[in-house]
């Protein structure tokens, strides 16, 4: 290395970086890393996120990635907030610009008074400079080219090098980072060494040339009983704990990692220690039509079976979902929603499948839906899905989304009660069959309007013919209006009865609330944060997050008790509002929408602006 080669090309106004100039913000800021996908940035970004988590600080990481293998822009946003407000931030105190393609946009996104860190191996286009931000140049490529030989390693280590610079200027605990690298590269000495070296390059450079930033980290103890997990992993774990033995799927983003994780957990927990056999079967189907068919076939035979998919898969499954509904066969569908319609934006998030799932298939159909808000609820609701599917002998959808499913979330440790036993619903046993002369499939409904079923392979007296064609309450073929209606009317009553069994909505009441805010799924954190923001501008709001469909009495009451409810959701057509209007007694005019559906996770700012901007309009409307 020649002396002076790495002179900082930073455009640093010493006044801007001087700690005295600003109040120092601890554990309350957001930064964004702009990368090119396929260059290994994900592991560096994940390392930063995990290190902050281990420092005990509330944190979130949002991976905004393209539907592509290599070469397109990808961003990773990290927000730390000591109060636990970790929904997506829209203001970035720091942007690490590693992608020349997106410099212009990335520079623009730094908030006034914020910082930009870029690779100063190449000069920054002067017209990109901004007077109101500080620009920190680190010659990352130059340093890595100097220190690493292999081309691929040079690219990969640039990411670790900027992570090193961030360790210095944000005060990330170096011991924690070392510990993480030790764990990650246990048994891979050479890789561990390369990572240590790259980390040092960035760290030493930043320490030499830059002062720590006026926002930084300090250890806390908020994560003692928390874990860092993505929703798809938690969903898969829920399926294992629920006792699912048959899984059928067709690869589709963003649900694929559900099945990847399920396979991994099955390798760990479902290999019989004595025989070495697999106590489960995973079927990669030829398409989603087949995947749901396999789930239905397995459930018909009495196995707990599920599929994981996304919107396009649900579209294909519509045909057989109607069969399962009408023939009353359990099925569990994990829908990890992405942006539609059609192929849409496969790697972006949306809540666009509500109506599709609620009424999937032709004819009169209605399904049970569960809406988790985070990975902890994914685990809990995954188990619940199987209980409900078997209790009500019908398809149950759990609607997660890409944000919940593929991003790492800090959530309370998952708990398991060993006294849990699956609710297998009404299945006539071999002993019971001994006592009856004839089994009638769709008769003798219970208080929830569910009729008992039998399983193949038990007794010939139990046999019946399962069909999607018109059938009577004994299961016989019919085209007679009264006989047909008798069955479908019971199905409607059965669906209604499920309202008492789906998870209760989450309600938070605030004294002096003028309005209600209703939301769903992954909007949870942003909306809750927004409630405080709204209160600061004089708008007090009660909060309700629906967690299941059909809606129960508490949802009805909340809608009834508020003069206006703002329904916050992530789709263009206000699908939750439509569902509420259609399926509760709510007056349509009392519901207003806040809709954010561009594909990135919701921020509190969206909600505050969305509600505040409509308040005047609403008041005028009320007073007219």
């Amino acid at each position, binding site marked *: 290395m020649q002396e002076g080669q790495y002179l900082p090309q930073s455009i640093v106004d010493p006044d801007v970086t001087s700690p005295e100039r600003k109040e120092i913000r601890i554990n309350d800021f957001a930064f964004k890393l702009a990368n090119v996908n396929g260059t290994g940035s994900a592991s560096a970004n994940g390392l930063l996120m995990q290190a902050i988590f281990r420092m005990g600080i509330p944190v979130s990481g949002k991976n905004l990635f393209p539907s592509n293998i290599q070469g397109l822009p990808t961003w990773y946003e990290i927000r730390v907030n000591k109060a636990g407000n970790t929904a997506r931030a829209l203001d970035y105190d720091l942007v690490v610009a590693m992608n020349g393609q997106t410099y212009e946009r990335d520079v623009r996104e730094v908030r006034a008074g914020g910082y930009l860190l870029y690779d100063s191996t190449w000069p920054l286009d002067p017209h990109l400079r901004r007077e109101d931000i500080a620009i920190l140049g680190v010659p990352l490529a130059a340093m890595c080219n100097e220190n690493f030989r292999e081309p691929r390693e040079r690219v990969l280590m640039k990411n670790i090098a900027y992570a090193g610079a961030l360790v210095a200027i944000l005060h990330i605990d170096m011991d924690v980072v070392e510990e993480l690298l030790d764990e990650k590269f246990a048994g891979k000495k050479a890789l561990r060494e390369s990572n240590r070296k790259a980390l040092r390059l960035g760290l030493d450079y930043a320490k030499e040339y830059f002062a720590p930033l006026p926002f930084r980290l300090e250890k806390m103890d908020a994560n003692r009983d928390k*874990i*860092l*997990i993505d929703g798809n992993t938690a969903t898969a*774990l829920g399926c*294992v*704990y*629920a*006792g*699912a*033995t*048959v899984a*059928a799927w067709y690869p589709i983003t963003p649900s694929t990692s559900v099945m990847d994780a399920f396979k991994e957990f099955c390798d760990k*927990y479902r290999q019989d220690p004595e*025989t*070495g*056999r*697999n*106590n*489960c*079967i*995973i*079927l990669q*189907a*030829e398409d989603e*039509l*087949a*995947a*749901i*068919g*396999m789930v*239905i*076939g*397995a*459930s*018909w*035979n*009495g*196995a707990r*079976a599920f599929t994981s998919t996304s919107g396009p898969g649900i579209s294909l499954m519509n*045909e*057989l979902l109607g*069969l399962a509904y009408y023939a009353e066969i359990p099925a569990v569908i994990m829908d990890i929603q992405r942006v539609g319609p059609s192929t849409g934006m496969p790697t972006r998030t949306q809540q666009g499948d509500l109506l599709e799932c609620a009424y999937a298939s032709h004819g009169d159909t209605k399904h049970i839906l569960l809406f988790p808000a985070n990975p902890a609820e994914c685990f809990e609701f995954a188990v619940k899905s199987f209980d409900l599917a078997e209790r009500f002998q019908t398809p149950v959808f759990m609607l997660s989304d890409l944000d919940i499913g593929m991003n790492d979330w800090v959530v309370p440790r*998952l*708990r*398991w009660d*060993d006294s849990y036993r*699956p609710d297998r619903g009404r299945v006539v046993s071999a002993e019971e069959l001994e006592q009856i002369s004839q089994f009638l499939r769709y008769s003798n409904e219970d208080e929830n309007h569910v009729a008992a079923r039998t399983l*193949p*392979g*038990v007794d*010939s007296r*139990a*046999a*019946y*013919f*399962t*069909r*999607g*064609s018109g059938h009577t309450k004994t299961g016989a*073929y019919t085209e007679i209006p009264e006989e047909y209606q008798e069955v479908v009317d019971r199905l409607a009553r059965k669906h209604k009865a499920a309202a008492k069994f789906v998870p209760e909505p989450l309600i938070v009441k605030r004294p002096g609330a003028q309005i209600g805010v209703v939301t769903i799924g992954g909007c949870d954190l942003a909306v809750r944060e927004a409630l405080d923001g709204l209160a600061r501008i004089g708008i007090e709001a009660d909060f309700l997050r629906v967690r299941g469909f059909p809606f129960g009495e508490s949802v009805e009451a909340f809608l009834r008790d508020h003069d206006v409810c703002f329904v916050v959701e992530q789709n263009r057509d206000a699908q939750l509002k439509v569902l509420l209007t259609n399926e509760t007694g709510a007056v349509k005019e009392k519901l207003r929408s806040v809709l954010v559906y561009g594909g990135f996770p919701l921020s509190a700012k969206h909600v505050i602006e969305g509600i505040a901007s409509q308040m005047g309009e609403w008041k005028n409307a009320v007073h007219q």
Partner: protein
Amino acid sequence: MPSISKPTVIHPSLRRNELGLTVRDYEGSMSTLCAGCGHDSITAALVRAIWESALPPHMIAKVSGIGCSSKTPAYFVSGAHGFNAAHGRMPPIATGANAANRELTYIGISGDGDSLSIGLGHLCHAIRRNLKMVYVIENNGVYGLTKGQFSASADVGSKSKRKEPNRMAPIDPVALGLSLGATFIARSFSGDKEQLVPILKAAMTHRGFALVDVLSPCVTFNDHEGSTKSYMHVRNQARAATETDFIPEASEILATIGQNGAVNVTMHDGSMVSFKGVPPDYDPTDREKVFSFLQERQSKGEIVTGILYIDETVPDLHELSGTPNFALTKLPYEKLCPGAAALEELQEEYR
């Protein structure tokens, strides 16, 4: 099939199988198909084959798609659960059912519309998985329930009832099966019960996917002059390429093996298919030879029938998946749930 339901009285002289059941115990409800439908003859052959095989009725699962053929599971073994699924979707339903409970004998009934058009992809993948099931295609070259459209198995030049000829090449399930690596392939004719019964019995013992294509004339829409799926045409053109005996497991038949130059194939359960009338150069375990033989006969306008190909060496879906040798549904929940302690331990990895 009877057009009136039979009395339930069982005549004492009726023969009983090893389970003490008569053939009547394997019948189903009354057929609603047209009088003379080939499908009803296949149903009768199935009843006979299952009775002779002495399968307990409750250990059979009947699966089908949609169409005339797919109605027929209601007409046999009323003591077995049946699943009349959606059009073309029987293979996925059967795959899932079999995945959950491998102990049942799966009998799938499909038609040429169900299997060769809307469900063609599913059929191909069930073959690839070597799903253990009997898969009967009741092949009449026509859509009956929608009143007479050509199906994908209609031969070039075959005429519809309106005298319009089909101009598109047919999909031949036997050639399809051979090219996809199907491990048991047979073709028969609904009117030839003597041949069909042993084929079905052998199919039920096969290690994996047993594809049985049965030409089954549609008396209403495809039994006229000019049709290549009519009774007349099939009777005239069908040639039994192989004559087979099905020899159940553990009999003393072993002594006869090899007689008259017969080719014997031992099935996975130890039973045996003995080929008698095979052509000199025919080896039902050699796929290439079978393929060229079929091509040659087909070019002469012959419809080749019999058990045409068997490979008992290929593992089925469960063997490929390393599952237990009993039904997954029999696993107690305690064996499936790792429990609270394991969850605590696992979560150390998520820190």
